[in-house]
């Protein structure tokens, strides 16, 4: 165990313009690009075939077609996003349906169970506490920069939970399942942190 950092002579000359520390979490760098990280091929889903479901335990409590989903109240947010692979992107603009509005549309007052599993096309899953979605903290986004989200970036719809590392903002989301007990999702089972707060640098298990 050696936490002493050796100095790299001559390193740092090519460093990027310093971004205020209150904008960029530790270990991150700012990019203007929009990198793509996915574990498999990009699912190509037509909105005509798309549905979105909300489940509590095993029972379905809400289901929407694309047109029905588009008719729900729409919210626009501007936010910074932080990927566990070290890039951060500032001032990204998303539009979609907040989790609060989704619950309301399903006629659910209080979520009644503390955890969520997001299920996606391609078999991807991710888990998070429901508290991290309510109060306008999370949404199902269908637009990026006013345009439909490209398939490589999770279109037609992705979860957006920008205060956690971006793997929690699951691409190609199709179903949210409210759970009594926490379960681990895809990356969370593979050694990544169960919660993933970028400001605490919770990249991997035990961080």
């Amino acid at each position, binding site marked *: 165990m050696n936490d002493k950092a050796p100095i790299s002579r001559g390193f740092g000359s090519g460093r990027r313009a310093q971004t205020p520390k209150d904008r960029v979490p530790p270990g991150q760098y700012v990019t203007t690009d929009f990198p793509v990280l996915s574990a498999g091929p990009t699912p190509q889903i037509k909105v005509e075939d798309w549905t979105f479901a909300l489940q509590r335990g095993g029972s379905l409590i809400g289901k929407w077609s694309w047109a029905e989903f588009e008719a729900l109240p729409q919210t626009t947010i501007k936010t910074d996003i932080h990927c566990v692979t070290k890039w951060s992107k500032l001032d990204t603009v998303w539009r979609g349906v907040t989790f609060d509005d989704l619950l309301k549309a399903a006629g659910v007052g209080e979520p009644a169970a503390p955890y969520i599993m997001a299920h996606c096309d391609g078999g991807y899953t991710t888990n998070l506490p429901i508290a991290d979605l309510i109060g306008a903290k999370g949404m199902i986004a269908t637009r990026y920069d006013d345009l439909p989200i490209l398939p490589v970036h999770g279109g037609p719809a992705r979860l957006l939970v920008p205060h956690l590392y971006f793997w929690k903002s699951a691409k190609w989301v199709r179903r949210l399942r409210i759970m009594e007990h926490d379960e681990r999702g895809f990356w969370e089972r593979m050694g990544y942190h169960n919660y993933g707060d970028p400001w605490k640098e919770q990249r991997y298990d035990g*961080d």
Partner: protein
Amino acid sequence: MTATETATASGRRLEWQVAEVSEIVIETPHVKSLFLHVTGWQGHLPGQHVDIRLTAEDGYQAQRSYSIASAPEDELLTLTVERVMGGEVSPYLVDELRAGDRFQLRGPVGGYFVWTVATRGPLYLIAGGSGIAPLMAMLRHRERRKAPVPTELLYSSRSLEDVIYPEELDAMAQHDRNLHIAYTLTRKQPEGWVGRRGRIDKAMLIEAPFPPPSKPNIFVCGPTPFVEHVSNLLVELGHDALAIKTERFGPTGA
């Protein structure tokens, strides 16, 4: 997916360790391999990566992820790094770093883009440029273990001088009838080039010895547009999307 379970069993924190550069090998005009000695390295699975952290004299730090190119059986940990123009970390690693230098590293990380000789079924590897690095870890592991797993590598490079590990790959294929390697050069081909020309297309993928019914384990690694293109073609050809594991890097091109 037993490999996956092995990769993630711990739950302990991945601590920063110090890596010392033992040797640097020039692979191509833009690519070098760093051979690292890491005291107490806990081992890795082929396909996994590490995080590295560099510290400048004024305390400024930067982190990046790099795939491991060496086999778990090898003594030194190898990272193969391509210089990204305008990059902050890769130009330092490729142009400034010297044998004897030290920096921080932690890992291994990632349990999905992983293959070991214990995995059933043929192995089908498709690399674009420096995307060969994690696939090389798989090929080296396969060779060290003398595993007769039927394996195809389809490797796309810009030009012959951009091909990484050519001698080692040819030597591997020469004495192993279960390993076949096909190269394609996209921009420039030398006179008398008998390999393939141009970007990977449907025809090249159909020629590969593993049609969908043979249920190969497919690993695609390279720049984002390359991986998108190839993995979409594989799905169109009827390969099971869940059998295609991908690792993308660099800008989207979009």
